[in-house]
């Protein structure tokens, strides 16, 4: 006879049965859950913090916007230096020898200079200063463009915003001061939001470009920090207005708070890898000695089935 394995096999039940009205139980459960949902919805409602736009950002922080635009051109924003799936500026994160992002490659190609600055400006009506500036930029060599961007980048601490204009005190930026000022004006009018979402035509549901540009600036993250939504604030578990968020992601967000994940440049890949391993372990609990033994050894089941065991004695 095969040996009985208490963590794998179930004992033969020889006890009695009790009446069970599955339809009644289901109906009562549904009514209770509906009432509870209505009660919670009535008492607490749900958060709906208005969306942030490039228009609100550039009006609230014009210099932060202009600086971000320059950084999109010099390659120092998060998006410009991201790597796959957006560009080849980096190799992406790794999990040991698994270079998953790199292997998949650039599938959502994005050139921050072209897509965030030059192409939106080209969609504007011809202007006395912008049109020649764009023509100069487009006709320039790669080395010339790079020299202008370097000069303007050095100017960043000195630029200021006055009477609707982004002012660059120093010379040597070529057409860039005019372009950055025009882009800031475009952003403040709301036209840049539209230009970034209508890249694929009139109908669109893809907000990749505009969200990436927004997240490169300080405004979005400042708003998130005040709402306790950043990673160091366990933000995944929160929503705006102090509402509960995705509390079931507590373990996922926990890893970001502890070493080595908290200080690793591969944190996202490592946390995902860890969660994948843990998810597979949860899936395979019935087959993992030790993990499947805990329920029997812990004897929590005696609490769950206390009536059954009480009736046995």
């Amino acid at each position, binding site marked *: 006879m095969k040996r009985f394995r208490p963590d794998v096999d179930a004992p033969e039940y020889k006890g009695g049965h009790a009446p069970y009205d599955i339809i009644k139980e289901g109906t009562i459960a549904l009514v209770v859950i509906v009432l509870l949902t209505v009660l919670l919805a009535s008492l607490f409602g749900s958060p709906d913090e*208005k969306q942030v736009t490039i228009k609100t950002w550039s009006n609230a922080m014009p210099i932060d916007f202009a600086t971000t635009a320059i950084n999109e051109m010099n390659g120092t924003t998060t998006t410009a230096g991201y790597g796959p799936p957006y560009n080849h500026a980096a190799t992406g994160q790794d999990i040991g020898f698994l270079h998953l992002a790199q292997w998949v490659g650039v599938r959502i190609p994005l050139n921050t200079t072209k897509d965030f600055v030059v192409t939106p400006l080209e969609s504007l009506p011809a202007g006395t200063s912008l049109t020649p500036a764009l023509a100069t930029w487009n006709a320039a060599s790669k080395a010339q463009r790079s020299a202008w961007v370097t000069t303007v980048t050095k100017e960043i601490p000195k630029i200021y915003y006055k009477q609707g204009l982004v002012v660059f005190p120093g010379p040597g930026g070529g057409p860039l001061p005019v372009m950055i000022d025009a882009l800031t004006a475009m952003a403040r009018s709301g036209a840049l939001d539209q230009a970034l979402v209508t890249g694929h035509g009139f109908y669109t549901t893809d907000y990749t470009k505009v969200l*990436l540009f927004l997240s490169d600036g300080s405004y979005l993250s400042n708003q998130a920090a005040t709402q306790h939504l950043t990673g160091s604030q366990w933000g995944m578990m929160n929503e705006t207005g102090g509402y509960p968020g995705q509390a079931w992601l507590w373990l996922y967000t926990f890893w970001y708070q502890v070493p080595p994940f908290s200080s690793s440049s591969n944190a996202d890949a490592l946390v995902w890898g860890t969660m994948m391993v843990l998810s597979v372990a949860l899936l395979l609990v019935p087959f993992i000695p030790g993990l499947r033994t805990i329920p029997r050894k812990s004897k929590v089941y005696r609490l769950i089935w206390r009536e059954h065991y009480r009736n046995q004695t």
Partner: protein
Amino acid sequence: MSTEQIDRQWTTRLRKRVAGKLPPEKVLPDTQPAYVASWIYVFGVATLAALGVVIATGCLLAIRGPQWWHQSYVGHFVNSMHLWSVEIFFFAMVVHLWGKYFMAAWRGGRSLTWMTGVVLFLTSIATAFTGYASQTNFDSQWITTQAKDGINATGAGAYFNVLNLGQMLMWHIVLLPLAAVALTALHVVLVRLKGVVPPFEENATVGTPS
């Protein structure tokens, strides 16, 4: 057509197989083993009921489209119901999961029931995430711009672009709910097929093998 021919039909064979494995008294039982007497069992049916409310409120939101709840008091209330039913759903599901773990509910050939439950839990997390990504407000802007890094790090972001609202909404209201409902159906069928796991018996020597 002879009886033998009819018996060989795929339809007949499937019907007989289903009827043999799941007779009406198993699908809709009117008794249960006496040990099924604990509050922990409530959380399974509570999860199912909450899922029903989540789907119903989601369907109501779908009627008027993704912007409705920002513009209408009624729409906002339906959205609030959707949010709170999701919170109840996850609370009930997690308690159910832990309860089943401490019962070692995979015993006696029930490992597939456990596994479908875990996959359903993970599918539900993905469904909820795509819902948060589809809110079209500040929350969805922040959540997606942060979540992209984790998903991109796995390589999946190249195909599952969380910044693409249309893609996220389709996953949220079509693909993932279909998967969740199918997994729920399979999970419930397996529960009915195998019955509720019996308690541990310290001196047991015979029983249902895995």
